[in-house]
């Protein structure tokens, strides 16, 4: 029972990270129909920026600073590389963002070197909380709480703020939005900023105790793809739910199913999200809450 509670907690923490990353995908995709394969590298960059800022700033300020820096970086990438390609084929933007990600990874490696680093935290690195006999990492609890706050802010931003309304208008019809005086190009920049900031937040919690910060941290985004697909490419609520579910399922599988499967079970939990994704797509090709595409000939 205590084991189950511990696994559930770390599953929820992982799920929160997935949800934050997937939210970045959805925000960008809804506004500009670009699927940002460089998201994982933004996560990694955010974690490294946090390692640097955490060295001399108080922790909450450093987190906000890391989000700001990574968001600005993402917006710059959008302005320099993606903006000239607005309206191009999906394949082009896919390849472009993949190669942007590759260059970003090389650059981070140049600046920070290949060493692993610990993520700075205001509490002891492996501090645990006793909940009814189960020992839960304090980092996991803070990750879930911070994720909840971030999602709340996102909801408020999208629902009630001027920029949020402009983003929704852009995603529903770019030309109409442009006609109504919404600066669509700048909105793309804002979406990338939001995606970068949330990626940095995900990176901060991803790099905490059991894991370390190194240049492979970005590979997590590969596992956020199934989350995006299961949740639905254009549904923010869908991917949050899917992220939490897949995070918990992954950790529970690692704990309970892997040992049963013998040699096939080695790292089986790493593949499971993809298998779930394939099966899910057979039933609902547009995800939990995605819009079904209606097409005219």
């Amino acid at each position: 029972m205590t084991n189950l509670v511990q696994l559930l907690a770390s599953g929820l923490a992982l799920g929160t990270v997935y949800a934050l990353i997937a939210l970045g995908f959805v925000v960008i995709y809804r506004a500009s129909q670009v699927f940002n394969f460089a998201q994982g590298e933004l996560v990694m960059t955010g974690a490294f920026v946090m390692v640097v800022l955490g060295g001399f700033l108080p922790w909450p300020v450093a987190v906000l600073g890391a989000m700001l820096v990574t968001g600005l970086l993402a917006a710059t990438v959008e302005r320099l590389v993606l903006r000239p390609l607005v309206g191009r084929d999906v394949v082009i933007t896919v390849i472009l963002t993949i190669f942007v990600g590759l260059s970003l990874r090389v650059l981070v490696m140049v600046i920070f070197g290949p060493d692993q680093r610990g993520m700075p935290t205001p509490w002891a690195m492996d501090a645990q909380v006793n909940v009814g006999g189960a020992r839960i990492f304090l980092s996991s609890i803070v990750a879930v709480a911070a994720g909840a706050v971030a999602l709340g802010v996102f909801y408020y931003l999208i629902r009630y703020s001027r920029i949020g309304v402009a983003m929704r208008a852009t995603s529903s019809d770019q030309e109409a939005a442009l006609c109504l005086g919404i600066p669509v190009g700048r909105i793309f920049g804002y979406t990338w900023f939001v995606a970068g900031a949330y990626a940095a937040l995900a990176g901060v919690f991803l790099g905490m105790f059991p894991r370390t910060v190194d240049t492979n941290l970005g590979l997590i985004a590969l596992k956020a793809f199934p989350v995006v697909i299961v949740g639905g490419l254009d549904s923010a609520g869908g991917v949050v739910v899917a992220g939490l579910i897949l995070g918990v399922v992954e950790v529970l599988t690692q704990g309970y199913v892997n040992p049963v499967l013998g040699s096939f079970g080695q790292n089986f939990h790493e593949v499971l999200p993809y298998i779930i994704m394939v099966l899910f797509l057979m039933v609902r090709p547009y995800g939990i809450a995605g819009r079904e595409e209606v097409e005219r000939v």
Partner: protein
Amino acid sequence: MPIRPLVTRYEDDLALFPTRWNKIALTLAVIALLVTPLVANRYWMDVVNLTAVYVVGAVALVILTGFTGQISLGHAGFLAVGAYSAAVLGNHLGVPFWLVVPVAGLAAAGVGLVAGPFALRLRGLYLAIITIGLVFVVNHVLRSFSGLTGGVQGTSVPMLWWFDQEGAADFLGGYRATTSVGSLTLATDVKIYLLFVLLAVCTVWCGVNIRRSNSGRAMMAVRDHDLAAAVLGVSPAKYKIVAFGISSFFAGVAGAMYAFKAAYITVDPPFNMNMSVEFIAIIVIGGATTVFGAVVGALFFGLVRPLAESLANRVDLLEALTASQQSLLILAILVIGFMLVEPTGLRGLWVKLKRYFSTWPFRY
């Protein structure tokens, strides 16, 4: 401005090399292929052999992505299946290499035909992402059956008969022997070169013929608009699956070639998403929809990597980078620049050039 000449007879329309310039280009290509093993040293033979693998893999992908419009990031998975079939067939059953190549292709085609139906309901980005899953699942399966595949440690790939002295499959380099044909001594890399050129030419020929045939036109109809194609009596489901099958067959062949060339393979370093991305980059650089574009892109890609590496060895751009990271960075910058400046790829550049000269002195 038409880019192909006016034809008045069906024979001309069907000709593979319709104009005099095509024939001249063909002759030059044949001469270049024959001269290469005479002038190239070991390093460049290696580069050329790898380029041949790229050509086969790129043509395979162009059949799926270029003709049928199915974006696949799972190409590396098919190559992995082909490569490991080659290894298992050679190691455990002692099958000679000329039989390994088609069987590896068939094994990969089997996987492709299983994966194809999953792709029927998906398109665009959804398909691209779900095919990444294919790479992960294939790699996981290959790693977990370590009895056959060597698991994480990897496995050697014997190339039996002609390349080997009577089936003596060593751990490494069992087939590094030379062969004498008359007075000519053929080193291993030259023998591999001859085999690879043969396979690449066959693949390109198949690709071109598929494009000219009924099924190729059906695939392109599905790409341009699958619903409209269905209305016109072309079954999108059938041709998507056929495209998956053909594409994964040639990808399997490319995988077997890769395995033969490397002689020792592991699962993850080569066969991961980066490899799939490289193939996508190849066909986009080439100009995504034609076999010509795929070949040009593969040549470009195969030759730019070593050039970037030698540049990286000479000029130390940044101290902290290794040569391979630097070449990756150069490649990434090149690809990004290409997309921004010339999105139609090398083929588009070629067509523009041709138009410029054929309309000279007027501007098109």
